[in-house]
């Protein structure tokens, strides 16, 4: 092969290479565009669904109402005052509650208990506690609302062991 023929062949191959490169870059560009098109479309669908869901979950008035001032996170409700009775005694031994609150007694023992107001049977007191009364294992009952700020002792009429006595402080 002469030098001229060689140059022609190289030139044809160079043209062919340029054509393949253009086709390749064109294909890559189409794929990228389709990718971004799908991406944007899915984003729009997501936004649309989210807005639809928020509309459905609202009470119907919040959608048109202007946003009010931010109040911050809602504090969790206070734990209801509970006294648990176990074979080892009542827990807690002293419970502080607000005026007007009720106290729940839960019997987690194997035996019944009989919760009454006052430090012992000879000195009944705080008759709102008598509403608890007889509790079989697993049962729970509430006192009546405790109306006056004071300290109320209670005892177990079934079992006079000191571990089953306690105090409710009403503030």
């Amino acid at each position, binding site marked *: 092969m002469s030098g001229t023929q060689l140059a022609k062949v190289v030139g044809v191959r160079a043209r062919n290479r340029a054509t393949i490169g253009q086709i390749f870059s064109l294909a890559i560009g189409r794929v990228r565009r389709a990718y971004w098109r799908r991406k944007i479309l899915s984003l729009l669908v997501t936004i649309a669904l989210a807005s639809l869901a928020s509309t459905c979950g609202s009470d119907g008035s919040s959608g048109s109402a202007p946003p009010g001032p931010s109040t911050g996170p809602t504090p969790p409700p206070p734990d209801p005052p509970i006294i648990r009775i176990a074979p080892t005694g009542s827990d807690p031994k002293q419970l502080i509650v607000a005026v007007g609150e009720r106290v729940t007694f839960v019997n987690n023992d*194997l*035996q*019944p208990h*009989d919760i009454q107001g006052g430090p012992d*049977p*000879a000195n009944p007191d705080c008759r709102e506690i008598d509403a608890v*009364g*007889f*509790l*079989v*294992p*697993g*049962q729970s009952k509430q006192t009546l609302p405790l109306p006056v700020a004071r300290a109320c002792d209670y005892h*177990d*009429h*079934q*079992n*006079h*062991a000191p571990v089953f006595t306690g105090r409710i402080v009403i503030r």
Partner: protein
Amino acid sequence: MRRSSRAALSFAERVPAFARAPGCCAIALIVVAAIPLSLQAQHEHQPAPPTTTDWQWNVDANVFFGYNYQYRKFRDFSAWESQNWLMAGGARRTGSGIFAASSMLSLEPWTLKDIGSSQAFQTGETFRRAPLIDYQHPHDFIMGLGATYQVPWRQLTWRLSGSIVGSPAFGPEVFMHRPSAADNPQAPLAHHYMDSMHVTPGVVTAGATAGEWTLASSWFRGREPDENRTDLDLGPLDSYSVRLGWTRGAWSAQASGASLTKPELVTPYDAKKLSASVTYVQADARRIAWTAAFGQNREIHGNLEAYLLEGHMNLTLRDAVYARAESVAKDILDAGFHPPGVFHRHRQSQVGALTVGYIRDMWATPQALIGVGGDVTGYLVPDNLRDAYGSPASFHVFVRYRRGPAGRTIVTHVH
């Protein structure tokens, strides 16, 4: 007297140590099971009269092992447990009379929970110094240990007995000996109204029998057994009872009364008891047995009454059915410790219970009967307990071992 008392207390102190020894339960069972059948006789409250000066021995045992399920409104209870009673005694002719010694043991301090067997509305005795409610207490390891001498004199048969632990002359035969309750593992709700004094520490009884009639009176310690199930709760004899009994063929009846000095730990006041019962035991193949009984506890906070009707009948040589119906006044709502000077009328709750059961003897050997059975109990709950109990029910499935001759037997008793 002082010396014997010291000796008894010393024995009492030794019993818990022995009882805590490893394997004592198994040893006791093996000892009973190892006694040859030739030494056995049909169990009787009083052994059959021996005709010679040689000792005649009798052994009896009733062991239930099974599953107890108690359905309740707020929390169910269940347990694998065993109720069991082992009895042994001997008799010989002495002079013109008969001398007999008897004993009765229970392994329930180890085969039941410390608090006892769960049973809705059951009451009696204490746990951790509080009244026991909804549980049948375990029986003491030593349920009976005593001796009797009886002699005929002037057309009467006179009887004198003394027991370290025994049963005073009060009420019908205790449920674990009653033919009408022989296959029922559960204590009656009326137990503490009519037959609970069978484990009384310190009993002296004197009586006489004339034909069909027997009059007996006991002097005993009135306090119920304490929570230590392995000791002897000895103390001064401070209570008394009287029982008039009648027997003719298959029929027997009794009426009795007792005056008790501070029987309950949680209610330190004296009490009285009344009881009456009629029993029928048919000795043919059907072995029909039934008991109707009434009991009344007369306490400072009110009179509590109980009515019981129970029966047992063989359907075949292997199959038997039993039933128990009760109506018992319980003071569950006000049961509690009452210090001296503090008492009030208790609210009463008239509880009804009906148990029906079936048992089939699966294996019979020359020395034992082994049966499989079960029962169901439903309750009539009074209004003042409905909030706490709802509509409870219970069932038992059990295997029963009875030591005795082959074939279904019904034990008989002499009062």
